């Protein structure tokens, strides 16, 4: 073959670098914070050495939060990449398409009607179920048959509707902290995450990622459209099922720990695609790693900003991501096709 090894190597190198960058940002995030700890003590604390108070702060307060941001970003990046492959549309993003808003509605219902008292895993489960409903609706109404513009309009409608229902649920719920919580769910935040939140989401995340990775080959065949993919021997029903369920698991779990954070799912795959040489199967992993870096870095910056009221993670993500979305939309040729 005239090509191959060097480029394949650079793909792997990029993945390794992105993973390393993610680890660096997460560790850096553990070294800074409102508690007055010098970096050396915090670093020692992070690895369980030194003063036990510092260790508690680094391991149980800062690390879960930093990891939550990274995980949420990675989940959104991976599901964005897979949804884009399935819908063959570079603007498909769990936030834009309303999947995140649906997952947030599920989480809010679980939290405010105290379903978590029934079973501790009800919150992520409710998020996943609602996200699944959204991905199914989008697929049934959208895939391959409608234009990007219409798909996004469907997403806008779904998003607004779920946002309104979320507000309604919170109005009905007997809880005094409604407004600030509403903002956290709808815009996303990883403030006050603890390790158990992550453990709870972990099985959904792992399963979701596994399903998306299994869908990769089918997504690659879909590069040539439904009919050709079918004739090539791709099992399209299986590919659809894997992406719809896998993305719902990832988005649901990510929303249950970070709320509805938008635009990571469109920006991360866009940046990952050249690294994967535009192969939709190989875009998933780098998109996850880039999404993780983006959100972990965004949360790191938020915590350093000298505001009295902390900026929401989703607001920061939108500040970076929304212009990125507009830029990608402006460059997408098939928008009206």
């Amino acid at each position: 073959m005239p090509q191959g090894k060097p480029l394949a190597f650079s793909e792997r190198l990029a993945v390794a670098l992105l993973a390393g960058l993610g680890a660096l940002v997460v560790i850096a995030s553990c070294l800074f914070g409102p508690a007055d700890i010098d970096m050396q003590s915090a670093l020692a604390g992070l690895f369980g050495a030194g003063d036990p108070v510092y260790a508690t702060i680094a391991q149980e307060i800062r690390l879960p939060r930093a990891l939550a941001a990274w995980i949420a970003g990675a989940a959104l990046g991976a599901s964005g990449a897979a949804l884009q492959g399935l819908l063959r549309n570079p603007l498909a993003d769990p936030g834009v398409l309303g999947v995140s808003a649906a997952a947030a509605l599920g989480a809010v219902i679980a939290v405010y009607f105290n379903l978590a008292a029934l079973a501790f895993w009800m919150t992520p489960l409710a998020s996943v179920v609602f996200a699944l409903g959204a991905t199914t609706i989008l697929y049934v109404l959208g895939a391959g048959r409608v234009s990007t513009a219409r798909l996004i309009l469907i997403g806008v409608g779904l998003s607004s509707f779920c946002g309104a229902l979320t507000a309604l649920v919170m109005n009905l719920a007997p809880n005094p902290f409604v407004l600030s919580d509403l903002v956290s769910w709808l815009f996303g935040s990883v403030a006050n995450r603890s390790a158990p939140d992550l453990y709870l989401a972990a099985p959904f995340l792992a399963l979701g990622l596994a399903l998306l990775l299994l869908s990769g080959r089918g997504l690659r065949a879909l590069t040539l459209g439904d009919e050709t993919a079918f004739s090539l021997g791709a099992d399209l029903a299986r590919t659809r099922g894997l992406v719809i369920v896998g993305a719902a698991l990832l988005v649901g779990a990510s929303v249950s720990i970070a709320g509805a954070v938008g635009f990571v799912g469109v920006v991360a795959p866009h940046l990952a695609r050249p690294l994967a040489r535009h192969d939709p199967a190989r875009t998933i992993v780098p998109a996850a790693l880039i999404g993780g870096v983006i959100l972990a870095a965004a949360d790191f910056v938020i915590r350093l900003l000298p505001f009295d009221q902390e900026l929401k993670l989703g607001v920061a993500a939108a500040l970076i991501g929304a212009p990125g979305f507009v830029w990608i939309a402006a460059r997408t040729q098939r928008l009206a096709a």
Partner: protein
Amino acid sequence: MSALIETAKLSVARDGAAVLNDISFSAGANEMIGVIGPNGAGKTTLLRALVGLPPAASGEARVMGEPAASLAPIRRGRTISYLPQTRPIYWSMTVERIVALGRFAYGAPADLAGEDAAAVERAIADADIAHLSRRPATSLSGGEAARVHLARALAAEAPVLIADEPTAALDPRHQLAIMKVLAKRAAAGGLVVAALHDLSLAARFCTRIMLLENGRLTADGAPVDVLTGANLARAFGVPAQVTAESGRIAVSFD
């Protein structure tokens, strides 16, 4: 010799109206079949039924003895190559990787090795696109893209190749190039079934012509027998003249 494709009373209805009506034929290796007929005669529907694509057909369409619609996906990919009428490429993968997708049913990854790589290289050589292989497949001209899709279909080295208007919207040079590659595949032991609009091109390259009118197979045989003035005038609704000079058939309508 066993038939590669066999249909019996194949019919397809859409919204209650018959699109294909009682199509029965069988075809085997070394045949290059041109499916001709006016727009809406059912050419695309016939080819789709042979691949197993919807709409669901009644009657039988068998590929190597198995019903086309219920072939296992991998078996379909290894038995049939298909060039649909619309051939999108959604992501700007390189030409080489697009052609490599032809090996999908062999579990080939994006970076090929062994027999997969050899098959892709043969297909790239046959379609004469070696000079394009590193280009993004979304940046090609119509003629280049047509040859890339053809190479992708050849790469599977499947016994049956089904092509829906493979020469549509191409200049004469590219039309000839595509037809030559298809004819070569048939001569090498494949079965090629192609829907064609250029009747002179069909006459020159096909070993057999099937004429569809309103969903019915009204003529099926050697080009000289099917491409008659009477057949064509009836099917296309305009007077047709068929001339044969030194064995080459030319069709003109007036």
